[in-house]
């Protein structure tokens, strides 16, 4: 499949017909002055409905996806996305709701959102939630704005955020976007936060520590209570990147380990589909002392009715045009109600067992970078391949040939030739066995035929893609000029 939808275009072909105009029509040029009107139609393709169906069906078949392949992309929690959630979210009384219609038209939806806030509070041990942020990174941004507002309300000008070196890249980027200075904390030999290092960096300029627990290596910060206590002693808040909440359902409530605020990624832990890159949802939960800073509008009850409260004296303001990614929130609610208490507990248990099982199966081939049991994911190092001139990137490409999407490669930056593997709880034992066997096979191939591995993949719709050419000669759109399909323009 190399043909673009534009290259299928035939002048005059139609794919959709609109109803005739049922009001007295006037020429558009009479309604809108010439100076505001478009001179040339945009160069959109002219194709039939069947052209469109074949094109986008065939294109879809070039993708690996959770529905078709095991997708052990570390830190992304690519688990099964239940179909029931999509079905319910598509009901017109969820999907076809206008955000500015009177609240009396949306009481059922608002009740769902209110219940979801309460469920998330119970799951995390936080006092209050906003569902507004549209993704994890926007949740982080919201959290950092809250941190800033909190210190300003206390008349403190704090400018530093401490972030461990193993953190997701969004953490320092969100901190910088919120006007903070980022100071990186070096992890210790066990891959954890070094409490001594933290103590050295804590000062009256530190607004917060932003940590991930379990961290990106899949390890639980054992000293978490000492860490949060130390931060609080210095007047600093503790922000938890909840990207890895997947490991903690029913095991640990972040609010009970001293976390002041966190974001959740509903498209990870709570099974909403990733959509080829979104939409996600990144609700933010806070401790009681931070509730007044949450974004507006807030969902409130007046008697038995739900209403949106626009005002909030100390609120950081709005982060989304309306109320967040409601279509995603509905799916997450359905998921939580379907699984319930025992189901959610089983999610984290099965995710942790799957990750440890795979780590054990791979120990002789590609050992974990740090010893000891992991939680829901682990980071293996493929540095042994270097002797054969094969990189982790090459192994990732070869893994595609075996029908597995590749784990997250070269992250975290603290591990050499890193493979960050998150099998998730919905993969079966036989899938994990096959995955381990494929990696063992690749380790053998790297010895016997390294060139073949370096040239992988061999069985996919395209061979190894030239990223260097893509970056040196950026071609980010098809140029319609000079193509016969668009000759008439």
């Amino acid at each position, binding site marked *: 499949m*190399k043909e673009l*939808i534009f290259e299928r275009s035939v002048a005059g072909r139609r*794919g*959709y017909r*609109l*109803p005739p105009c049922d*009001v007295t029509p*006037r020429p558009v040029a009479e309604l809108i002055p010439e100076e505001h009107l*478009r001179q040339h*139609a945009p160069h*959109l393709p002219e*194709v039939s409905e069947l052209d*469109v169906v074949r094109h986008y*069906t065939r294109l879809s078949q070039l993708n*690996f*996806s959770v*529905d078709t392949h095991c*997708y052990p992309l570390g830190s992304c929690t690519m688990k099964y996305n239940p179909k*029931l959630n999509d079905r319910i979210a598509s009901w017109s009384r*969820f999907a076809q709701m*206008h*955000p*500015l*219609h009177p609240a*009396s038209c949306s009481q*059922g939806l608002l009740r769902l959102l209110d219940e979801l806030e309460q469920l998330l509070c119970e*799951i995390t041990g936080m006092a209050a939630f906003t569902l507004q942020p549209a993704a994890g*990174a926007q949740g982080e941004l919201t959290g950092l704005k809250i941190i800033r507002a909190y210190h300003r309300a206390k008349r403190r000008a704090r400018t530093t955020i401490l972030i461990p070196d193993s953190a997701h890249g969004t953490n320092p980027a969100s901190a*910088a976007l919120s*006007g903070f200075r980022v100071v990186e904390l070096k992890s210790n030999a066990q891959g954890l936060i070094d409490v001594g290092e933290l103590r050295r960096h804590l000062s009256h300029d530190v607004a917060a520590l932003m940590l991930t627990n379990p961290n990106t290596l899949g390890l639980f910060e054992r000293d978490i209570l000492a860490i949060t206590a130390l931060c609080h002693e210095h007047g600093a808040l503790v922000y938890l990147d909840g990207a890895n909440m997947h490991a903690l359902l029913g095991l640990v409530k972040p609010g009970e380990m001293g976390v002041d605020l966190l974001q959740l990624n509903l*498209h990870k832990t709570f*099974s909403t589909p*990733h*959509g*080829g890159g979104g939409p996600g949802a990144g609700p933010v939960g806070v401790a009681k002392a931070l509730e007044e800073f949450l974004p507006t509008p807030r969902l409130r009850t007046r008697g038995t009715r739900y209403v949106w409260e626009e005002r909030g004296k100390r609120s*950081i303001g*709005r982060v*989304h*045009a309306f*109320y967040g990614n409601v279509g995603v929130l509905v799916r997450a609610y359905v998921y939580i109600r379907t*699984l*319930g208490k025992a*189901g*959610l507990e089983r*999610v984290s248990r099965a995710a942790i*067992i799957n990750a440890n*099982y795979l780590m*054990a199966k791979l120990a002789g081939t590609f050992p974990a970078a740090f010893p000891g049991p992991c939680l829901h994911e682990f980071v293996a190092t493929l540095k042994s391949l270097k002797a054969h001139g094969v990189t982790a990137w090459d192994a990732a*490409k070869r893994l595609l040939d075996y029908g597995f999407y590749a784990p997250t490669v070269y992250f975290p930056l603290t591990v050499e030739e890193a493979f960050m593997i998150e099998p998730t709880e*919905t993969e*079966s*034992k036989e899938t994990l066995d096959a995955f381990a066997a494929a990696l063992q096979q690749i380790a053998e191939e790297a010895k016997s035929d390294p060139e073949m591995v370096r*040239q992988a993949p061999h069985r*996919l*719709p*395209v*061979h190894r893609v030239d990223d260097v050419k*893509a970056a040196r000669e950026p*071609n980010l*759109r098809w140029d319609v000029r000079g193509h016969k399909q668009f000759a008439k323009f």
Partner: protein
Amino acid sequence: MDYTPHTDEEIQQMLQTIGVRSFDELVSAIPPEVRCRSFQIPEGLSEQEVLTLCEELVQPNRSLHEFASFLGFGSYHHVIPTVVDTLAARGEWLTPYTPYQAEASQGTLQMIYEFQTLICELMGMEVANASLYDGASALAEAATMSLRAHARPRLLIAQTVHPHYRQVMSTYLSGFPCVVQEIPSTNGVVDLEALAKALNDDVAAVILQQPNVFGCLEPMGEAFELAHRVGALCVADVYPISLGALKPPGSCGADIAVAEGRCLGSPVAYGGPGLGLLTTTQALLRRIPGRLAGCTVDRLGQRSFTLTLQTREQHIRREKATSNVCTNEGWLCLRATIFLSVLGPQGLRELAALNAQKAHALWRRLQELGFMKPAFDQPFFNEFTMRCLNDHTIEEINRKLLKQGLIGGLALRPWYPHLPDAAVWCATEMISTSDIDRLLDALKSL
């Protein structure tokens, strides 16, 4: 129901392979003091039970299908061709993630490349990214992008930009060393004299919305010419459906054009998920936030696609990135791509024309009532502002309309107290003549 496949026997085998006796041994790193003592979540349900629960929950809701709604204000009810829903429901589109492994993601990557091309064509701009969260965050990203591109401390934004968008921008900019100045309006559009006065070589960017929050068409070309004279960047927030009829931002001199793209084939969904569109010029390519798909070749020289120019992004640049954005709205990109492909240039032109026809018919009919008068003497597309000059407040009128299954225009008072009797009315192609008749009958019998 929890969707995990393991039998008890398998769990035992796996624990044995791991070399532990129990699950608790695996989580021994978690200090006992922080282990959950209570977890008060309702018990799980079967599929049938969940359906029943949600059917009850959804009962009090009333969807756009159950009203004739004359309310837009940033969220517009448009047609969604059946093929959009059918194709987008495929698991191969819905369940992958960001296409990091290009060779196993050619479908998503080619689709994004087509999307970027379609959006550039629609906007008349040179470069489009692979989308942002929504129109409001796209506007905020355009603001921070302008501040980074230009070492200048001031941003000018028209008061005729959607108030929620201005609020989101202000949240994003808190902590940025910059000053945002709002430019007042005159007769429903940006006051060009006030704009000219506010412009100097401290201004990084001028931000306008087209059509603006009142539905009026801004003198965008003139405003942007003034801005370019002092070297400021020009940022336009536009309405994609209107571009089937209206001059695209690229022809008005925009350096950055953003939009809420949900109207291109995705449901209103109570305002989210949205589809933030962001386009710009070649000159600002390296400043663009978010993902970009590029066309390249594979090892054997065949056309292929990949994410590119990633060094701008957070996972590489960390605190020096152009933005913290990680996910885009890939699934809505797909819907917009299918929507624009199936409509084609002719369909889009007809769709825009239908919107203009219906809204202008509504505008004429409302004036027949005698107590509704246009608030401004300006051209508009599918939304306009009317003053209500009888002794009912707009809120009272809307309460009466609601009882008859009609949603009236949105009162502007909360955001524009100087327009206490004004409301913004909208008619898209989803409004029929009989809807307008029903509205008129209801308004006549107030």
